[in-house]
């Protein structure tokens, strides 16, 4: 494992920057997630580290070595793609062993066997080793795809939305597994996703990326509790943060144009609060209920307390406790 450094990298496609002046360090043993929407430059960043793309400016360092001009095979990285492509005619064992059997590596057969069995155990697929890859469920296939990267012990694992083709339940299980494996191995991972849950639950640090730039990097809690701007604030949290005109509440700083209010910033009472709102709808999503309010024409969505016993049409009062404030340019300002 090794530290990976992206130094002021810019990558142009048709003269348009896909990644602009991006700098990021993934520490040894760290799990960094790049979180952003489609087209933000996440995958391009990953491909630049892998050597599948060459930067127009800047450099890439792995383990203290400038690898910017090195071929992918020389960089000691392992890539896990969104669409796992296993060799359908090979068994799970052969799929896992494939990378180790490459002629240039010259790994002794006994070492290959030991390594494959160790990784299979880690991924809970040891009983499937002699099945054909096509006889596996989607979750098992994705485990094999991840396993193929794990057998190699590279400097860094690069993962491009590896869980997005799995169903919700499997994704939930794999999140926990992947995090456990990473911790157990002390693996260095750069992970790309548009799923905030994946980023928050697995990453040691999240880099929020938009239009090829990293807007903020920090621990999940830092990003969630202390976003630098309204865009970052809106990326994390379910339901999404409510961005409301500052004029709706008294007490906002003079420069504030927008108030950011999450569930934990809102107190809902039957009366006596700062402002009145009407309950429009309560959406029961199972594990949580979303309370949809109308606040002077502004929609507000917050988690509903299951014991609150509210119904559509009820008038409630709202008060804020330590919300976030943003200026006209969307930049966070102190309360």
């Amino acid at each position: 494992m090794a530290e990976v450094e992206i130094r002021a990298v810019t990558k142009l496609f048709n003269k348009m920057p896909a990644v602009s002046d991006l700098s990021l360090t993934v520490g040894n043993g760290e799990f960094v997630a790049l979180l952003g929407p489609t087209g933000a430059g996440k995958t391009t960043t990953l491909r630049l580290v892998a050597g599948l793309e060459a930067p127009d400016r800047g450099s890439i360092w792995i383990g203290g070595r400038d690898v910017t001009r090195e071929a992918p095979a020389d960089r000691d990285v392992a890539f896990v793609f969104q669409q796992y492509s296993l060799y359908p005619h090979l068994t799970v064992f052969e799929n896992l062993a494939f990378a180790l059997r490459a002629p240039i590596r010259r790994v002794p057969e006994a070492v290959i066997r030991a390594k494959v069995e160790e990784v299979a155990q880690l991924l809970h697929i040891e009983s499937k080793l002699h099945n054909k890859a096509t006889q596996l469920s989607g979750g098992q296939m994705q485990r094999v795809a991840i396993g193929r990267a794990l057998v190699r012990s590279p400097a860094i694992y690069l993962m491009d939305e590896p869980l997005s083709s799995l169903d919700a339940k499997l994704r939930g299980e794999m999140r926990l597994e992947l995090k456990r494996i990473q911790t157990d191995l002390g693996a260095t991972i750069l992970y790309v996703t548009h799923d905030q849950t994946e980023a928050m639950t697995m990453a040691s640090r999240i880099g929020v990326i938009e239009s090829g730039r990293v807007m903020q990097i920090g621990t999940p809690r830092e990003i969630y509790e202390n976003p630098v701007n309204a865009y970052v604030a809106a990326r994390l949290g379910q339901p999404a943060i409510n961005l409301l005109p500052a004029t709706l509440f008294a007490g906002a700083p003079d420069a504030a144009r927008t108030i950011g209010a999450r569930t934990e910033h809102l107190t809902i009472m039957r009366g006596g609060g700062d402002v009145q709102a009407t309950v429009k709808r309560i959406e029961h999503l199972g594990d949580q209920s979303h309370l949809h309010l109308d606040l002077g024409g502004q929609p507000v969505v917050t988690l509903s307390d299951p014991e609150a016993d509210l119904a559509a049409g009820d008038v409630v009062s709202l008060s804020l406790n330590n919300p976030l404030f943003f200026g006209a340019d969307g930049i966070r300002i102190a309360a």
Partner: protein
Amino acid sequence: MAQIRVEALDKSFGTFHAVRSASFTVEDGQFLCLLGPSGCGKTTTLRMIAGLELPTAGTIRLDGEDVTMNRASARDIAFVFQFFALYPHMNVRRNIGFPLKCEGISSAERDRRVVEVARILRISHLLDRPVSGLAGGDRQRVALGRAIVRKPKCFLMDEPLGALDTEMREEMIRELRALHDRLGATTVYVTHDQLEAMAMADRIAVMNNGVVEQVASPRDIYDRPVSLFVADFIGSPPMNFLLFRGSLQPGAAAIRLGDRDVPVPAAREARADSDLVLGVRPEHVRFSDRGMVRGEVYGVEYLGTTQIVTVTTSYGALKARSPASLALRTGETVGLDFRPDTLSIFDQQSGRAIRTALHEGAGHG
């Protein structure tokens, strides 16, 4: 608009029994989701309602009329597929207007209706654009527009959002539901995604192995699942299952778990000593030093407002959803309690829920 009644519908493909005696009613203006894993028979059921497959047995009634053997074109139904095929050589306006052209509707009337549909779907600005350059969500809106423009009696949708990414899907979920509220058209919507079903449906029919296991409101499906399958399929993370052996008497309001009495909703039926399952939703697990079940924290997943805590216990790994402010470390020993009035009990062998006081509020959610 229309009511759809499906009565004892059966479909076999050779020796494969795809749908077994499915019965449910979609009331006029209702939004029903057929929800289940792949291969459960939900799409086959939808295709039979559309007239794209003929049932082996059973009846389909559209507004009381038996349409079981009618051709698809005689059913006044619009179908929206997962892999929407737009005509690549036509612009958005002509794609949406195409079904009306096929019906021989005048170009003035056609244009008026296309403009109206585009306004509802908020794609007016795209009308003269070619469809090839459109983003995924906009392409899906055009596909929807082509279904809406015919003003059919009902809409049948087969995973229409399946090909979109998470963010676009969440936006389209809100839009589809808002559209339904505005048009009030009877809708049957097939999905394997429980979040789509929970967020959009008035009622959900959960299918498994060709059988409709439960038809109820999203809230009842979540709070009062009739089977282990439904309980496990709905909810993320899913319900925790604690296997135990015991007996139940009507009125009994506790079960014996290890050496502790765990309060549960009062039983309404008797069970002799048998293998049972206690079902606990993660949000109904509480941390307590004197908790009934003890275990070790295996992992904590931070979600901002809440967190999911996985605890290894003698009943397997249990998941709890707690406020993110609760500080827990991996490896720490904790005690767990369960919120009594929310618990489900199942018979392990049949997989069916045992009737308790929990089910007495059903139907009002």
